């Protein structure tokens, strides 16, 4: 009996030393990962900062696959040529097997088709929302190398329809931003409204930076909808809603998450936003999301409220976890395959921080799988590399926003299922 314990103890000691040994040797090598993000744009910089934050946490936990991680960051200038060239340089000159980015779908797509897929590099985007990626994946042209942590517009759109249904609106007019996100959003929400029996009176594109949206707003007003749905950004959203209200439009509004902004609330005025309801994908009600928020606030001294921050964190963390799971010297395809092992719903839950990463390393080292509990939720990719997410319905208050209701992931999935 004593002998047995003794042997176990010495085995434990040896194991511990071995772990120490690997941790020590982890300092000696560096693995590079690439990031192509629009750092020359104001909202792009925090996304890159958050990615670096995740890398720092992993390095604190001893690095991934036995090596410290160095994130080589390149600016895309939101120019496809520049982004593609930067990505190619990262793959060829720095030898990266993992590419984080880009933000704009119009930049991510040519990187995917001309750099990462031909080069066998895994690409994980925080923020590209275009449905074109789903189409490309369905055609088998992404070769399983493409992932994104930005919940597709499907979640937002479905919840928007649910709000209209719950509020009992009979007809809705849609105003959408005239870019890839807005066009997708406008088309999907129209289909979802029809699916729940809400009539769509009209669907109008709103171009950026127009001095006035009177023509568009008047056109929407003429159809006399019970409510309007707004898939707009704060600047043109403010302008359009001001004209809408001043022309006597209804104050029943459903807002996409892009309007969850103090700028919009202040510039439109709270007195007009009393019956506005917004939708958003949500952090899960889990400890890991709170841990992320706390860690983020400790590091940056502000709430992680900008667009794409939680998504950027998760993209980086999952990529690094997959590198850990795939082991040293893995190819991009092997790392992409390992993503399933770190986002396995049946796996051991791990939190989104250094301790969680260390725990994941132990589980993966023992041949197990882990379920990454991320900043955007219990992230699970479907076969096309898309994620679903829990959702919230929110409304404005005098000081910010408040949650009206919360729909966990399974309810969201069930509702989306009922629409199709």
């Amino acid at each position: 009996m004593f002998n047995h314990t003794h042997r176990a103890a010495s085995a434990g000691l040896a194991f511990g030393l071995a772990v120490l040994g690997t941790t020590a040797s982890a300092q000696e090598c560096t693995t590079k990962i690439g990031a192509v993000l629009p750092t020359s744009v104001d909202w792009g910089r925090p996304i890159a900062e958050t990615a670096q934050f995740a890398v720092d946490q992993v390095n604190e936990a001893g690095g991934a696959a036995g090596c410290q991680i160095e994130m080589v960051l390149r600016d895309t200038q939101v120019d496809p040529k520049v982004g593609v060239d930067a990505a190619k340089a990262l793959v060829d000159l720095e030898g990266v097997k993992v590419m984080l980015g880009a933000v704009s779908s119009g930049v991510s797509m040519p990187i995917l088709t001309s750099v990462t897929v031909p080069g066998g590099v895994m690409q994980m985007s925080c923020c590209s929302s275009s449905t074109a990626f789903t189409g490309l994946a369905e055609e088998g042209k992404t070769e399983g190398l493409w992932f994104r942590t930005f919940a597709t517009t499907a979640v937002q759109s479905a919840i928007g329809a649910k709000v209209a249904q719950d509020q009992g609106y009979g007809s809705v007019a849609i105003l959408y931003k005239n870019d890839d996100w807005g066009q997708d959003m406008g088309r999907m929400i129209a289909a979802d409204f029809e699916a729940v029996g809400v009539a769509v009176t009209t669907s109008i594109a709103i171009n950026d930076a127009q001095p006035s949206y009177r023509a568009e707003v008047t056109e929407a007003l003429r159809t006399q909808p019970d409510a309007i749905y707004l898939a707009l950004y704060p600047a043109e959203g403010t302008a359009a809603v001001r004209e809408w209200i001043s022309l006597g439009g209804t104050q029943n509004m459903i807002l996409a998450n892009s309007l969850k902004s103090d700028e919009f609330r202040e510039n439109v005025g709270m007195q007009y936003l009393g019956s506005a309801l917004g939708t958003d994908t949500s952090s899960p009600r889990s400890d890991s999301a709170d841990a992320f928020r706390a860690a983020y606030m400790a590091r940056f001294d502000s709430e992680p409220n900008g667009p794409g921050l939680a998504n950027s964190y998760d993209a980086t963390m999952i990529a690094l976890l997959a590198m850990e799971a795939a082991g040293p010297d893995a190819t991009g395809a092997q790392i992409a395959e390992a993503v399933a092992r770190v986002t396995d719903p049946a796996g051991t839950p791990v939190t989104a921080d250094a301790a969680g990463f260390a725990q994941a390393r132990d589980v993966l080292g023992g041949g197990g799988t882990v379920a990454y509990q991320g900043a955007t939720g219990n992230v699970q990719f479907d076969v096309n590399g898309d994620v679903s997410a829990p959702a919230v319905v929110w409304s404005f208050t005098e000081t910010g926003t408040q949650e009206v209701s919360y729909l966990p992931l399974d309810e969201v999935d069930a509702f989306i299922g009922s629409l199709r």
Partner: protein
Amino acid sequence: MIGVISYLVFFATTASILAIAVLGLNLQWGNTGLFNGGVVAFFGAGAYGTLILGGAAQAGHLGGYGLAYPLALLGGMIAAGLMAWIVGLLTLRLRHDYLAIATFGVAVAFENLMRNAEWLAGGAKGVRGFERPLRSALGDGFIYNLLFFLAVLLILIAVYLFLERLVASPFGRLLRAVREDEEAAASLGKSPARLRLTAFVTGSVILGLAGGLYGTFYAFVSPQDILPTLTFQIWAMLIVGGAGNNRGAIFGAFLIWGAWTASGWALSRFAPVEAQLYTGSLQFVLIGCVIVGMLMWRPQGLLPERLVVSQRGKPPSVQ
């Protein structure tokens, strides 16, 4: 090592494609004096035309004609040429800055058309799913990129030789005559309007060729590829290289694109980690400084136009 070569091939492909576009602009501005402020429209027409004609079938917009690649590329060039012809008929009476503003407007209108007309070219999502020619035979790797580069290089050389012949010919002399003094050219019985239109359409077809190759190379094109920035970049290449000199146009394309990418690479490589986040903005400052510097100290470009006397008289007889 193979990585460096692979990257250089990739870089040179993009630079060569841009060089073809700069050559097209050089025929218009350098040789004929037409201020085309809408370079991207013709570049974009070529790219969209090629991908729509040669691509796989797409739900929801035009495409899936599956033409053989050379035909698709030719189609893209014809699309660019047709557009140039229509635009030219309408605007070529305009001079200099007025023409620049009109063509700039055409480019913005083209971008907006592509962004909005989802039935035409997928709207903001762009045209995807293009199968690059011979990809199934050659795979996706380095060999493919190398052969693609050689093909682009051959096309670049062909365009260069064509333009060199053209500007050295009597027709080229006429273009310069129109550029320098239209009335003088007209007084000799030439038709400046027709010459301007011919040069404008020819240059735009070359821009369309560059666009077609660009779309092929990325297997994708979206409205984001045809923003006014590209017009600016191609103009910067021509100004720095030397307007009126075809070799200067090519040199300028390689130089500016090289500076554009190398500055990004160098900043990400050598700037300290804390400064990394700001290197993107810094890069814009650097590029701007280079262009301003060029304009101040060498406005004729690095390889200025060589004025040639195309027909020499007899050498003076030696006494």
